[in-house]
């Protein structure tokens, strides 16, 4: 059964079609990688799936609930670490977690205990009283991840979760995602670090100029004796370096 399902999802900004007719099926309890170069429409798709943007056309179902007709239900079910991390200036890391706990209906003590465990695991506990606008990028990212997890969501959306995070935290996040996956949580992530994606996800899609150009399982990719990187460059291509003769 598909936990994330989209039907002709389209987003238009004036004349620009950022996402065109995206159809996705992500099974429950799997990790799905959404890949593409900068400006290809990855983050816009995540924003559409999480209710940050309203689709121009099409719909998406998260756990059977439509993002158009039941947005509050969808938001209650999902956890999101968006591209811009969605943090409040002048609140501390700890206050962010307590804020999320109360809004998702957790009792105060429960929210504090979960928050403490998450921050300890993410090596953020000593810095919990730091204002997020004074924290490093990696710390802010871990704070946003902890906020996405504190209410134990059914579906988790992570936009570039490994970018700017130290190796220990990166490893911890990978272990955490694998554990969540085995416990039935569906994870939708975007990443530019293709090696990590290859080791973590079960299925992936490549989006280019707003359209999905390739969808495959990792098993099938490896069976065809290719890596994700090779498949990625087959669609995306690279520019030549020879023109930059003046450098160096």
């Amino acid at each position, binding site marked *: 059964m598909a936990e994330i399902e989209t039907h002709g999802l389209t987003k238009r900004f004036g004349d620009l079609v950022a996402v065109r007719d995206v159809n996705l099926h992500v099974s429950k309890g799997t990790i799905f990688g959404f890949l593409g170069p900068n400006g290809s429409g990855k983050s816009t798709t995540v924003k559409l799936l*999480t*209710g*940050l*943007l*309203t689709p121009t056309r099409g719909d998406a179902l998260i756990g059977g609930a439509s993002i158009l007709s039941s*947005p*509050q*239900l969808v*938001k*209650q079910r999902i956890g*999101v670490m*968006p591209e*811009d*991390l*969605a*943090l*409040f*200036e*002048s*609140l*501390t890391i700890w*206050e962010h977690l*307590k*804020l*999320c706990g*109360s*809004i*998702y*209906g957790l009792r*105060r003590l429960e929210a504090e205990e979960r928050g403490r465990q998450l921050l300890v695991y993410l090596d953020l506990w000593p810095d919990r*009283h*730091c*204002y997020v606008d*004074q*924290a*490093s990028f990696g710390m802010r990212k871990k704070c946003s991840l902890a906020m996405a997890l504190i209410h134990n969501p059914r579906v988790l959306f992570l936009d570039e979760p490994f970018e700017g995070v130290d190796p220990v935290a990166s490893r911890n996040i990978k272990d955490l995602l694998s554990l969540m996956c085995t416990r039935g949580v569906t994870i939708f992530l975007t990443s530019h670090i293709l090696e990590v994606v290859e080791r973590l996800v079960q299925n992936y899609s490549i989006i280019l100029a707003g359209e999905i150009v390739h969808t495959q399982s990792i098993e099938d990719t490896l069976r065809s004796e290719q890596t994700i990187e090779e498949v990625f460059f087959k669609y995306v291509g690279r520019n030549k370096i020879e023109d930059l003769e003046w450098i160096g």
Partner: protein
Amino acid sequence: MDRIASILKYQWRVYWRQFSRPGALRATNQGLLLILTLYVFIRYLAIIHSAVLGVARGKTGSLEGALTIVSIGWLFTPLVNTKAGITMNGLLHLPIPRMQLFSIKLLSLLVPPYGWMVAAGSLIVCYPLSQGPKPIIGTMGGLLFTGSCCLTGVTIAQLMSVSSWRKLLGFLLAIFAILSALQVTISHVHLDLLLTFSPVAIAAQTALGNGSWRGIGLLAGLTAVAYFAALWSFQQSLESSSNRHSRKIVVLNPFIFLGRIGAFLTKDLRYFRRLLDPYFGLLASALCSWYLSSAQVPSIEVLTRFIVIIFAPNASLVFNCFGLDNRSALDRYSLLPLSGKTIIAGKNLAYVLIMSVEILPVVILGAWRLGFWAASLCLAEAALLALAYMTWGNWIAIKHAFKMQFFRVASGGSVIHAIAGLAFGSLPGVFLISLSKAGETLNWMLITLVFLFYGALYLNSVQRGGMDFDLRPDSFREFINS
């Protein structure tokens, strides 16, 4: 010089580019703003004309008025939030010496048109100063006065961005206000005597040639001190912005506000008190408290007028309640399972808490000096004003949001909406002022009916504002980002 010119060119471009967007001129009512500015400028010219005549007769009242306007202008120019596309932090990693950065900071004041107006006003004020017995000394006095005001304004604006200095400035201001009040109340020293030693009075006296070289010396010394203070505060502000990872100072404990929106309340209160506007309301509240405690026979009419005045500077907290949230925060609002109505109601609650802090001392003092019925009238007036302001704010906060900055005075947005909102918000106050003339034979039935009317309008505004927030998040975010 090329570097400075180049950076200023791009500052200029960034500032004016915001108006090149379709509808931007109409949205911010630049035409009306121009008319208002011209009106103020014409009024200012009238004061200058009167100052010229006054100087000829050996009187400096109007001249001091004009100089005060210039000093306020220079105080507010660096404090109002400008759309600074190229920030000093952004330039720090480039090979530009600090002195050049400081020059860029000073010259950037002249990028927005109100900077030109203040500069023009400062030059014009030199005309009456040059009409006295010693024209050159008078003109020098005017220029030195302008320089010191500009540099003082820059210093204050820069120190406002440093946490420890912000607190110290607030403390010093409070001490100064209390000492002035005590001096005037207890010692019966007339305020004019204190103002004799102000830079405004010293500059005005140079026009009359009274102790002119001493005056010039004092103004030159003041300008030199202001220059070094501005340079030093510039260093402080740059270092402060580079100093990350500072620890939280617990001022407001989030445990006070429980429930789903408790943490939002904490956040909004922290945000609101970082805007300078509410402090003008607090100042009005302090003045009203002073009046109530020191006047021999306080008047209920004055009190009800003061309450209207206290609400006015706080308008931006409710007319543009999302103006201090950045894009990231707005994304979080959209991600959380909260309805727009809940978010709007939470913002309103934060506004009510801020207003309660400003109004309650006045009501308590009113009850002490004027009796229970007067306090009841004040409470009714404050509640009606809050309902009216929140109603207007909820109608426009989503559709006409504009960006505000911490530790700056809110500026920007639509002038028409602000004026109309102030008029709409103050209407119940005007109504109660007229009722207060009736004394204790107040028509409470009529007041109840007005309450019901504004209550219904408010509930409708929460509904509509909530729907706007739920339905228009895309355009709303674009507004905030613009």
